[in-house]
């Protein structure tokens, strides 16, 4: 009977925390029984046993955090015990003294370079695919479209450069390749090693000065916080952002919303918000301008047939972007319901990993926080993100050149210039403006 390992429950998951064991040591388990709650980088999830048997041994206590693929527990047959000293691949002879076996273990833990190499040669998503076949199949996400697999652009480097970089502990992504298409060569790595040895590291954005203020608290990075940090650096670094700003007349929108609210008193139409209108308009504009519903994939621009709308949801400990898939097929009412459901479950950490995956663009709304306008960072590999500010009353010049009081809404579109040029972004925003300034269009 087998050891069971930390499952890979999302595309970006590299480690997980055992929040709780739902079965006790020695308890019988059947395939499909929930045996533990696992916190991934995105959510806490119930995890079902991949085997029938008895939970003979628990290696990782509640609260323990291990890498994907590490051993969690042993499920044995009736009366079967977990194998002793499971760590040692090449166990010394049984008589060998304990000290020796400890030493052997320490030595097997030593070779760090192998790990580094693994990191450099394969992005985590790819490494995960190999792992993914092992644990329980029913939790494996099967997103229909996967723009997410190309999250980080692969560093082009010659085999020799890769080997040297691994040996010297140099990060290839920090080296400017001088070969064709920026390929990193042996010479580039050697130069980087030299400059690293010569002066302080230029590649790391290391904390330059130690803060004198005195450390009040050191907050351990949650899985989510790590992913936020990694993904946004992966975005703002390589993805060439540019920004388009518009301010739309939100008067008709406010009127429409007020009408729905008062007319539909008590029904769910009364709960439709300005943001729901914005989401609906963003989706319909993407249908009208399909070139914007696209992402950059190394040697191609991929246009998507579905509009998968990612919505930024703030949580206490960070933010997540649940996805409404095939949003172009949904009515305003359905989108409103879907986003409320997703936000609710995201706050309760009760989301399935696939519900975070496959977004083709994101809408982030900070209007509720009183932000007039802002610029957002693209969530790669998506092609753009919309930053929605607050609807505010302003002094405006109306059609008759008279000063009047009007409602205004500021929208900023951050575009990946590799996918979306200024004119294309403008075309998208023009359509978005048309829909939002004529909100009855969104009701049909």
């Amino acid at each position, binding site marked *: 009977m087998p050891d069971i390992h930390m499952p890979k429950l999302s595309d970006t998951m590299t480690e997980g925390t055992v929040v709780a064991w739902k079965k006790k040591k020695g308890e019988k388990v059947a395939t499909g029984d929930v045996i533990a709650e696992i916190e991934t980088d995105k959510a806490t999830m119930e995890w079902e046993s991949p085997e029938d048997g008895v939970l003979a041994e628990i290696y990782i206590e509640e609260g323990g955090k291990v890498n994907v693929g590490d051993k969690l527990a042993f499920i044995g047959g009736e009366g079967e015990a977990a194998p002793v000293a499971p760590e040692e691949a090449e166990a010394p002879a049984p008589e060998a003294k304990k000290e020796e076996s400890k030493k052997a273990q320490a030595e097997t833990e030593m070779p760090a370079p192998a790990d580094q190499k693994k990191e450099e040669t394969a992005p985590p998503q790819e490494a995960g695919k190999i792992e993914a076949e092992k644990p329980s199949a029913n939790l494996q996400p099967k997103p229909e479209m996967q723009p997410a697999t190309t999250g980080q652009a692969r560093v082009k480097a*010659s*085999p*020799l450069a890769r080997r040297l970089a691994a040996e010297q502990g140099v990060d290839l992504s920090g080296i400017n390749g001088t070969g064709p298409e920026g390929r990193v*060569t042996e010479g580039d790595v050697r130069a980087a090693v030299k400059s690293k040895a010569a002066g302080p590291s230029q590649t790391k954005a290391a904390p330059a000065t130690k803060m004198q203020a005195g450390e009040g608290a050191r907050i351990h990075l949650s899985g989510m916080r790590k992913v936020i940090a990694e993904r946004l650096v992966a975005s703002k670094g390589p993805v060439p952002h540019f920004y388009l700003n518009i301010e739309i007349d939100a008067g008709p929108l406010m009127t429409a919303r007020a009408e729905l609210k008062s007319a539909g008193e008590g029904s769910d139409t009364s709960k439709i918000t300005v943001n729901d209108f914005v989401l609906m308009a963003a989706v319909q504009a993407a249908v009208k301008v399909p070139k914007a519903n696209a992402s950059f994939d190394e040697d191609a621009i991929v246009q998507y047939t579905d509009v998968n709308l990612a919505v930024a949801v703030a949580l206490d400990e960070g933010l997540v972007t649940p996805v409404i898939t095939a949003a172009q097929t949904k009515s305003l009412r359905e989108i409103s319901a879907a986003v409320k459901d997703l936000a609710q479950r995201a706050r309760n950490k009760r989301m399935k990993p696939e519900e975070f995956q496959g977004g083709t663009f994101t809408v982030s709304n900070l209007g509720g926080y009183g932000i007039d306008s802002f610029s957002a960072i693209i969530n790669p590999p998506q092609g753009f993100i919309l930053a929605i500010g607050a609807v505010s009353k302003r002094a405006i010049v109306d059609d008759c050149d008279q000063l009047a009081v009007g409602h205004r809404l500021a929208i900023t579109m951050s575009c990946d210039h590799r996918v979306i040029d200024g004119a294309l972004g403008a075309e998208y925003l023009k359509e978005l403006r048309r829909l939002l300034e004529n909100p009855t269009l969104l009701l049909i």
Partner: protein
Amino acid sequence: MREITYRQALNEALAEELERDQNVFLMGEEVAQYNGAYKVSQGLLDRFGPMRIIDTPISENGFAGMGVGAAMVGLRPIIEFMTFSFSLVAFDQVVNNAPNMLTMSGGQFNIPITFRGPNGPAHQLGATHSHATECLYANFPGLKICTPATPRDAKGLLKTAIRDNNPVLVLESELLYSSKGMVEPLEHDLLIPLGQAELKREGSDVTIICYAQTVPLALAAAEALEGEEISAEVLDLRSIKPLDLQAILASVSKTHRVVVAEQDRPYCGIGAEICYRIQKEIFDELDAPIARVSQEDVPMPYNERLEQAALPSAEKIMAAVKKVCYA
């Protein structure tokens, strides 16, 4: 050491082996009365007589087959093809009977035969007479193939081939017959083992792997590249099969960049096999994709300028070197 021609070196090798072993004989078109189409067998008829230097009709399939039969009964035939383009008419004897007999007879009949003659494009011989056949024959288990590029290698490899107890193809080069080089004195029994490459020039930036007619091209390219501060190493394979993989890997591990210059065609050519082996064995030593220089993938043109354009050249090798050096 003394300077002799490639043609003379081959002639010495034949004479020495005919002298050494009564079972050795030479057979082919024009080898006796006419002293050889390319005068490689000059003087041999006078010296060894018509029983051992035998003119044949224009019937490659026939005399190649006779050679295989003679080898089966204990003789050591040297079969000259006036050009290896004509060996294609005797393909069945060379690829079927000669290399398979040992296995198919359950070890009863080994075939100590040498097939030799000029191979590869020369000068305006047209599409049917310009074939580089090494890639064809290298595909057949049981055949050994060497491709001498210098007088010394020609003599040493031919002598080794004649003494080998299995079929060996000595692929000579018409364009090299008159080239000169230093060779050990006559009394020296010069034997160069099959499967040993030789560094013809040392360098540090790139390895040019070559054989036969591409060796002088590679050397010329390497010399010109020196002026552009690229130090090229020139590795002459000398044998196509067995292949001196260790020498290849050692040189590539030093330079990390490779150009294979071959005289055959690109598709399934010798270079394809070499590239495969390099990346399989020492992927991590490569700092750039491997480049190949070969004939163009067309029937060899008769027109002189077109022929030049279709052939590998020192200029093409230089361009390939610069490409792999990102220069």
